[in-house]
């Protein structure tokens, strides 16, 4: 069986700054995989490369056997990306936004209505979907965006800080959506977060990234046991030498 993600020696240089420095990892189909690290570690750069937004300076990356650099169009057909700072069109209603995105991401033999109903179920916004999104709270927008990312059941969902900046209730709801929906439909998820507790709760495996380098990889339970820590936060601090 082909790997969902197969990244090999990824390097990304922005001028004098090396944002990614030889990052390699792979994700199996059906896994929830987390990239964790502090702000500026290179997580978003890595996700942007996977989602065909930017090209690596060197190295290779394949998504379900599609070369991301050479076959960006094919890659875009099987992925869905939720950027960390993502917005919605303020003058569209929630439902109109979902319909617009569903049409753009439409796969053969799929029904737009079924897809948007699916999204409505995922986000749980009910009648508020008829309102313009400019009336939504930050948490409601994020729920809409997560639903948009998952509604087409992509083979790989790439979620950058899915619950970043949200209050406890909305963050909890979003984590529940991801956990439940992904397992139900067998999707593969790559998510990044600097919230290590969130990642520990959601992910089957994690990678720790710091200063553009992948410094540790494994299952949360195994890593905690190996470093004799109570949570991934402590593991990270030990690995980078702050504890």
């Amino acid at each position: 069986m082909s790997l969902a993600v197969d990244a090999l020696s990824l390097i990304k240089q922005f001028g004098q700054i090396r944002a990614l420095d030889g990052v390699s990892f792979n994700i199996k189909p059906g896994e929830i995989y987390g990239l964790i690290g502090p702000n500026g570690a290179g997580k978003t750069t890595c996700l942007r490369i996977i989602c065909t937004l930017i090209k690596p300076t060197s190295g290779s990356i394949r998504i379900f056997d599609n070369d991301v650099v050479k076959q960006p169009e094919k890659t875009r057909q099987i992925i869905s990306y939720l950027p960390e700072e993502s917005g919605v069109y303020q003058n569209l209603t929630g439902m109109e936004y979902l319909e617009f995105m569903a049409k753009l991401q439409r796969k053969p033999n799929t029904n737009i209505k079924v897809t948007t109903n699916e999204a409505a179920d995922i986000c749980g916004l009910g009648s508020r979907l008829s309102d313009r999104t400019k009336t939504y709270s930050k948490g409601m927008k994020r729920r809409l965006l997560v639903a948009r990312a998952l509604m087409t059941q992509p083979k790989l969902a790439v979620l950058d800080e899915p619950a970043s900046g949200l209050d406890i209730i909305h963050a909890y709801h979003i984590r529940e959506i991801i956990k439940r929906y992904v397992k139900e439909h067998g999707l593969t998820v790559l998510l990044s977060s600097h919230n290590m507790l969130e990642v520990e709760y959601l992910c089957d495996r994690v990678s720790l990234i710091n200063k553009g380098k992948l410094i540790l990889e494994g299952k949360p339970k195994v890593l905690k046991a190996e470093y004799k820590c109570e949570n991934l936060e402590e593991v990270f601090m030990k690995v980078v030498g702050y504890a």
Partner: protein
Amino acid sequence: MLKGFTIILLKELKELMRDPKILVGMIVLPLIMFPVLGLVMGYAVQSAQTEAQTATLLVTNNDGGNWSKVFVGYLNRTLKIVLIENVSPQVVLDQGLLAKNNSTTLVEVPSGFSQNLTVHIDGTWNVIGLVNVYGVFSGGGGIFSGMSGNTVATVVGGFNRAVAPDLVQISQSSIIKGQIEYGVDSIALSGLLLSQAIALPITIMIMLTYAMQIAATSVAMEKEEKTLETLLTVPVDRFAILMGKVSSTIIVAGVAAVTVLIGYNYMIGSISTGLTSSLGSGVNLVALGLVPNVLGYILLGVSLFFTLLSALALAVVMSAFSENVRGAQALVGYVYPLIFIPSLALVYLDVNTLPLVLKAVFYAIPYSHPILASKAVVTGDYATVLFGIIYVALFTVIIMYIASRLFATEKILTAKFRFGKSKAKENSE
């Protein structure tokens, strides 16, 4: 004084002055643009004066009497004239004598002139000497183009002061497209049609700047609202995204071009009415051939459309280099002098009278072309209009190509127009 007012004022000023886009757009550009306009206008006045002073006046004396010789002699002392004897204005026109003598004004001293002057001086004051002045109406002139025609009136006034008040009067006629239009004052006609020469450039100027501001927000808004990244990862051709954005502006451009033409056509109709009332009945702009025909309107519409399209495409490309709507609007502001200068300058100038370098500069600016076209369609100079359409269309294709390249690469996300600040730090995260 209001508590905290000074502190807030100083902070706001500091922020504004540290924003190079505002500094350049609001202070440096006007400092450059208005002196340039001043130079252009100064040149226009100077060239009009020179033209008036050096213009050759073709005088045909069909009288032959003593007074006609005195009058022609007076003209000759003040103006540069070429004298012909016993040739009717129609024959002058048929033989192309005006062009051969490099003149745009014909003065006819008609038969009976000397006798009328003698009668007038003998005390019959209601008999006067009439001189027929025929001005060639070019249609392409600027605000100062009537100067040489006025010079004849000034010299005739001088003659009357020297001999007898109201002794000689002028009857103005125009030569329009090779035809003599009796009783149509070419100076008054130029003055009335000047409103047309001013209105269209001003309208185009407002329309272009307004449309560019709107178009500039199309990509910048996607960046500011953080929707662009998502859009670029969906399985849709990126050229389709670009074309979707540009096409919406094409529709707006098309509607805007039609709107301008409708308004323009209405304005021409109003001028025609005004002309009839000021120059007497029987004067009809359509009959004079001074209103664009259907082909002229179509070409003017196409010229307007392509100019708008090129401006909108350029605004879309420029907005891709900014991080937010404010930045995009500031960026397109740098293009405004290229809209303002030809729009304002071509009111004052006839581009054909400019030196080659200045002429080339005006032709190189895409936004000059609808203004040049608006004058050219009146005179039937369709070659100029077609050249402008082809030039602006090519310019648009190049801009669209750059835009498509920009959308196809990561530059759409990473390209930023900035003043000396490294972009690498912001890109790496």
